[in-house]
Each structure stands twice: as structure tokens, then as C-alpha cells.
């Protein structure tokens, strides 16, 4: 559920196809996103899940985002 929502956010923000956005996908390297894209994805995730992602450091893959959200929701 968390993954599907994050996938939808990334698809919307970066104009990608859903199949391009998998758990193992590296957001900046494989999806050609730059720092502003990543900030915006984080913003949308914060609003969607009502969580606070303090730092973008260490966030590389879609899995990293999913883990971050699930930890805060637990």
C-alpha cells in the first residue's frame, strides 16, 4: 500500500511509467531525477502520509522511501 502510493507520487512528479518505478529503482540515477525532484517527491510523501522526513541523505532507492514511511507509521 505504501509502495503503491509512493510509486504513484514518483510517476506523477517525474512523468515516468509505473513499471519504471520499482522498489529497487535508484531515484536519482535510474530515473534521472535531480535534487529538486527528490525534494518534491519527499514533500508529496510527507503530505500524503503525514510524516516528517528530516533528511534526504541516505535516500537512494524507492525502497528507502518506503522503509522511512513504514518506520514512522509503526
Amino acid at each position: 500500500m505504501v509502495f503503491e502510493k509512493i510509486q504513484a507520487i514518483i510517476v506523477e512528479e517525474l512523468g515516468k511509467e509505473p513499471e519504471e518505478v520499482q522498489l529497487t529503482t535508484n531515484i536519482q540515477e535510474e530515473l534521472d531525477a535531480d535534487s529538486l525532484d527528490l525534494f518534491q517527491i519527499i514533500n508529496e510523501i510527507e503530505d500524503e502520509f503525514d510524516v516528517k522526513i528530516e533528511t534526504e541523505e541516505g535516500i537512494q532507492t524507492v525502497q528507502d522511501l518506503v522503509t522511512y514511511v513504514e518506520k514512522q507509521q509503526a
Partner: protein
Amino acid sequence: MKKYTRITYTSRFVPDHVLTNQQLSTMMDTSDEWIRSRTGIKARHIVTKENTSDLCIKVAQQLLDKSGKVPEEIDFILVATITPDYGMPSVACQVQGAIHAENAFAFDLSAACSGFVYALSMADKLIQSGNYQTGLVIGGESLSKVLDWQDRATAVLFGDGAAGVMVEAGTTQQFLGEKLQSDGQRGQALTSSFLPNQSPFYDNDQTPQPYLQMIGRGIFDFAIKDVSKNILTLVDDASVDFLLLHQANVRIIDKIAKKTNIARHKFLTNMDRYGNTSAASIPLLLDEALEQKTLVLGTNQRVVLTGFGGGLTWGSILLSL
């Protein structure tokens, strides 16, 4: 009778030298495509011999010429800048001296990229007081002197220039509302020109940091969230014709348009040719839009001017042109 503030003339002046992305790519590891796609900036003007006061003096002279007024008719001069020639005298006093506005008082206002909006708000209050009839409000910067030209993350973003307006007391209302905000707790997200105390008495382990520095995510979040909220306190899509936002990055404007649900085409831009000129960006855009007749004074177009930047500072003014 109640005094209303009216913007009657606008003007701009940028230095001749144009620095393109292509030229920057020969100085540092960057490319035209990279800068354009990520910032919307293609070129910027950079001073080669002028200082901030020179740019602002040109704007003031042009405003006088356009208006046909004599310098003695100017009651006050406000200059918004974070790159003054000196700590003192202020750029505003340099302008006052250069144009011989002998009856004007003059001072600078420091509110970074919100400087012009803050200064315009102050000018509005001065006119409304009934004590002053005519003022000049100018935003001017030579940001090139506070940039680290080795740092591709910041050097490509900024440009130099100045622009301003003449405000006069009138009988019809042009300034409909405003919302100015600050948050000093987030001030370290965007800094420049830190000079440590060099006195022999000072226990000093500080290092000078003259260059402009920013924490990208903090500033991006601020611009998208806080600035969008600020705009929505004054207008929504149905109640605004055009928005002139500080020209930092075209993607910030795209996101603010989305966040506020205001049609993207209402947001004017010119950062492609000027880069981020801090306090000069909004009057630069205003003057161009009037010249191109996108905006026309006296037509009651509802226009929002919004600045946001270091301090943190942000604010909007709603005008009926």
C-alpha cells in the same frame, strides 16, 4: 481625503555584459542543457565595472526622466539590496546624492529576495501617512561579488541588475492588501557575507564566509509550502490575473502554481534572461511586463507581487493596476 499609493512609473537597468550558460560551462563542470532544464536560466547579466549604486542610480535617473519630475519633488528613496557598495553610506543615499534629490530622505532595506516587496510595502505606508507625495523604490544587486565562482551549484543561478518604481499619492486605491512574513529560526538555510570580528580583543575562531550559501532542501520546502500559503491568504485562481514571483528557479514557480491551484500561465517569468537577481527580480519583471503590455497601468488588472528569500523572509502585495 484619504491618500492612496499608486505605482506611476517603472524602470530597469542591467549591466551590458551577458554571461551565457555556454560560457559558464567553460569555467566549471556544467552545461547549458543542465542549467536550462533544472533552473530555466539561459543567461544572466554580470557587472564588469559597475557597483550596485551605479545600477540603482541609472534606474532612478530613468524614473525621473519618464515622469518629467524634478529631483526636488522626490520625498524618499528606498533601496532593497543585500549587496550594497558599502556598509555605509547606503546605496539609497548614494542614489539621492547622484540624482540631487535634495528633499528626499534615503535608506536601504535588507530583506534579501523579498526586499523589493518589503520596501514597496514601507513606501505604501509612507504615502498613506499623508506626509509624503512621491518616492522611489528600487531593488538592486551585484550578486556576482558574493558568489563563489568555483561552485557550480550556486554560481549558475544568479545575476546582477536593478529595477524600481516611482510611487505617488493618488485618489484611487491600487494597493489592495499584503502579507509579509519572516522566520529567523530558519535563517541559516540561506546566508551570505559573514564577516568575523577581526578586533585584537575578540576571541575569534570564526572563519569569514563571504559567499552565498544555501541548504537546498530547506529553501525548496520553504518556497513551495510557505510561499504558496502566503499567496493564498490574498488570492485564489478566480481572483488574480497575474502573479510576479521572485525569479529564483522556474521549477519553483511550476510547483507553486500547482500547490496554489492557480493557472500556470498567470505566473510571469523572465529568469531565462536574468537569472536570480534577488531584490531586483520583481521590479525587473514588472517593468518588462508593462513594456510588453502584458500588464497595463490603469486597467485594474489584479496582480500579486511575491518575494521570498534569505532571513527567511517572504511576502506578497496585491495590486489593482
